[in-house]
């Protein structure tokens, strides 16, 4: 029987292949502190692909597209598995979208999107490393500048 570093869940979502250092940021995006069911978080697990990886398993939750878009910015190599009765019923790689809306705050304090309740919008100009260009003020943000809303 295969040994699991992090125990299995019966129904819910597994976010795997997270760059290990980004695991807790992904956990923050998924707001795990407010989950009522079991949440398992593993970091520094052995990975052929990444060397070290992180994994998050959330019982009873199917993650939505908005959350996937946010995770894509922090962990572009991650995969998402949807689990039902201990079986993977759906598996997908996270894809960084071409346009990000309402997810990332523009890092330019003088940008109109930081005023007047304007919905933020960025064009993804590079997926790896991630670079986002603000639709409004045109400034380009790299990973270190990204602040999620």
């Amino acid at each position: 029987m295969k040994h699991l570093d992090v125990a299995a869940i019966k129904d819910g979502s597994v976010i795997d292949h997270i760059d290990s250092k980004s695991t807790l940021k992904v956990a923050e995006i998924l707001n795990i502190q407010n989950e009522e069911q079991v949440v398992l978080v593993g970091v520094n697990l052995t990975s052929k692909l990444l060397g070290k990886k992180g994994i998050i398993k959330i019982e009873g939750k199917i993650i939505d597209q908005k959350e996937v878009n946010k995770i894509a910015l922090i962990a572009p190599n991650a995969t998402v598995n949807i689990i039902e009765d201990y079986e993977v019923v759906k598996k997908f790689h996270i894809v960084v979208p071409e346009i990000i809306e309402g997810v990332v705050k523009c890092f330019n304090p003088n940008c109109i999107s930081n005023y007047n309740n304007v919905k933020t919008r960025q064009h993804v100009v590079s997926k790896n490393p991630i670079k986002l260009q603000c639709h409004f003020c045109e400034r380009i943000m790299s990973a270190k500048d990204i602040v999620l809303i």
Partner: protein
Amino acid sequence: MVSFKQRNIISIRHFNKEELLYILDLASRMDHMDHTDMLKGKVLASLFFEPSTRTRLSFESAMKRLGGMVIGFAEPGGTSTAKGESLSDSAKIIEGYCDIIVLRHYLEGSAQLAADVVKIPVINAGDGANQHPTQTFLDLYTIQKTKGTLEGITIGFLGDLKYGRTVHSLAYALAYFGAEMYFISPPSLRLPADFLETLKDRKVKCHENESLMGISKRLDVIYCTRIQKERFADPIEFEKVRGIYRLSKTMLEEFGIKDGLKVLHPLPRVDEMDDSLDATDFAVYFHQARNGIPIRKALLAAVLGAVE
């Protein structure tokens, strides 16, 4: 085929080399044209949330010389903005009163936001420290007219490169023409790192310096800018760099210049450029300001579909 009909003029990034040259060619034709009725019956709304002399008046003059009419305001004090109305709402309402909006605003991205919420064309007349595309068109036009070409020039940008939107727009445009660029500023007013990276990605040969000394001899064009007090949140930071450069005839003679050097400045100037330059052959900044008319006539006529 190049067409500007009903297009927004928001950022120089939205235009390719062919489109830039199309407007310069049209401006050259407009330069020799007197009053016409080409835009008769059309109304331009001139919305200036920030002070302006050259841009606002040259837009109004250009529109009137083409037979059109102008409504608008030169400062937001007497408008609904003072009551807290959002820019989106103001734009949607004013859209009903005009055929084209010319907008200057202190927040970056404001022209794009307005263009996103209205169906008529929007021309960005300067959005914070971001873009000033019509100034860039007239800067390109001035360089082309005075140097005879835009191809392969060596240009030195001097002054406030951090907040100077005209610098950002012009540098981006000149990248199409194989320019070599020197960015001369105090460390606190350097070109933003992300913008410098964009230029380098476009294979522009870029250099950063703190003085013109040793560089002026290599330059075909010096683009001098004012250090803009209004962009500094902290007045102490402004005082540290105020008057740090003062371009003068004596300085250029001492440092040495290349034959045919031209000095441009988007104006207004304060103390960064001495009056002694005005009578020299390389001072073209007053001519540059006048070029606002043919360029803005060309853009208005092209966007409003009066020329093909």
